[in-house]
């Protein structure tokens, strides 16, 4: 996992609520057995038509918008637990997703892959959408160390919450698995003190 400290970038706006992981990566693309290459099918059915031609009205096909930040409507990542959704977003080139709230499983999956989910208030999110609408070249800064999201165009700076442990992991590129493996003694002690852990 690559460490994340701070990022300043333009953003791609997707002002749709309840974007589910079936849209992010449809089930028929889940047959791969590695983590790589999902980016080409990110938002497949919104991005391409039946003949596999890019749909002009979809934001990822609009050359006006680019950047490493995806700005999305509320409840982003709902539905299926497929981690392939986080892999696809990251593989496409995004490092941050900003929304007013995330579905729980998606948020966990993103964090486990170093893709940073930034939760801001609906007001801050709306302002960011409006900013991009007026100027597609507008830049935003996500500073994980300070836990701030800055709309560089308007100067609005807002804090965001993140679990302290998770923040340390992301800033250093640590996986949960390294931490859990370090807890091995406690885990075995826990197993041993249970009378019958099958009950």
């Amino acid at each position, binding site marked *: 996992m690559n460490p994340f400290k701070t990022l300043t970038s333009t953003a791609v706006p997707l002002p*749709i609520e*309840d974007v589910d992981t079936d849209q992010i990566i449809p089930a028929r693309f889940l*047959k791969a057995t590695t*983590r790589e290459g999902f980016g080409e099918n990110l938002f497949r059915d919104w991005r391409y038509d039946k003949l596999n031609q890019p749909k002009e009205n979809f934001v990822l096909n609009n050359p006006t918008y680019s950047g490493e930040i995806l700005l999305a409507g509320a409840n982003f990542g709902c539905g299926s*637990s497929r*981690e392939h959704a986080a892999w696809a977003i990251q593989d496409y080139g995004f490092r941050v997703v900003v929304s007013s709230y995330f*579905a729980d*499983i998606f948020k966990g999956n993103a964090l486990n892959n170093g893709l940073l989910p930034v939760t801001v208030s609906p007001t801050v999110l709306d302002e960011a959408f409006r900013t991009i609408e007026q100027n597609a070249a507008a830049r935003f800064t996500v500073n994980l160390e300070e836990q701030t999201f800055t709309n560089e165009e308007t100067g609005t700076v807002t804090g965001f919450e993140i679990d302290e442990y998770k923040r340390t992991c992301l800033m250093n590129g640590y996986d*949960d698995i390294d931490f859990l493996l370090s807890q091995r003694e406690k885990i075995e002690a826990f197993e041993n003190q249970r009378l019958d852990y099958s009950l």
Partner: protein
Amino acid sequence: MPLHPRAAARLVIFARQIFELAMPTLFDKVWDAHVVTSVPGGAQVLYIDRHLIHEVTSPQAFNGLRQRGIPLLRRDRIVATADHNVPTKDQDKPIAEPLSRKQVEMLTTNCAEFGVELYGLGHPYQGIVHVIGPELGITRPGITMVCGDSHTSTHGAFGAIAFGIGTSQVEQVMATQCVLMEKPRKMRINIEGDLQPGVTAKDLILYVIAKLGTGGGTGHFVEYAGSAIRSLSMEGRMTVCNMSIEMGARGGLIAPDQTTFDYLEGREFAPKREEWEKAVAHWRTLPTDADATFDIEYTYRAEEIPPMITYGTNPGMGMGVKDRIPQASALHGEASMEKAMQYMDLEIGKPMEGMPVDYVFIGSCTNSRIEDLRLAGSLVQGKRIAANVTGIVVPGSQQVAKQAIAEGLDRVFEAAGFEFRGAGCSACLGMNEDKVPAGRYCVSTSNRNFEGRQGPGARTILASPLTAAAAAVAGKIVDVREFKI
């Protein structure tokens, strides 16, 4: 002298801890009994008793273990099956589709290499992971259970803490038998009274999701309670808990009671003899204490729940079968509603009753158990499905299929014009060849009506097995309460 803010905060936490210890909920009891240790910042290391895996979300986890050179910590805690990607026809032949075949074969080789019990294609226990866990007695009250699948919430019907995880966490559980997670907040949903005839557990949960929206449960674990919930069979309770994720909840659970114990007793892997007695005594201590409190609580009347259908492109876009498609609201904004109506080719303000349908799918981890097939079978018995409808019935497991055949349900469905298939996830998510063509309407007993869920361009209408069966026979959306059986 005023209290230092940090000291005040500590006092509040201390007070809350005492409060919670004194009056725990079912969720608290199970969760707290599985905490190995806490991490500064709020997350906890939660011990996992049972881990179910399948072909789609496990290959990268096995690869991760290999790359790190670490073994499984407790291979006897893991059970594998092939369900998402398997064909439902010709299950005795090699899988025709190369990528699906490769993924299923990889599960077989991974399980062999790591020593995991596999109920693969052809095994009498094979089936949808959330159907086989309960029917084999692997699922039971008071345990923690995970699977790389969001509908793992199903198993909460037994009073277990069960939730879906991503592949990184699948790998973590394989390596350490633990996940690292903040304890979710607690929600209780009470359904009091009696369901009307023709109204099922599926309608109940679609009704709740329509009230709360797809994000209404985010950050929470939901306990379902009240007389209508207690009256449900285990199959019905599983249907309810299954769809907890569709309102964004981490999971759902129901207090174990005599219905739970009666279902489990004698099942393949359920405790036996003295172990059974000890287990039941423990399970009886699990229900939420009378004065326990929840972060949020909702109460609904069962009598007010009609047969439900969905009109849009997420499970929160549901309504009574006689209702008209509602206007945009706080739950579904104008842009979402417009997008949904365009995809579904439907119109705000119009009813859906009487609308012709093309496909009917009876199956999925939500509604593919024997009780679901009996219910649908009772409606189609002696009838023919309409000429405009293609109907398929996909039992949830080999055991469900076997039972259905023993009861003659396969013949009932086939005589009516349905295809009766082999076990698997099938048209719920269209990973195998069971897809609904673009632009066609499918009344489905599954759990998600997302765009393209049942195939690119497919239009899904979620409903109960009864409403789906009635739609198949009538060839259109009908109110099953008025349907002549």
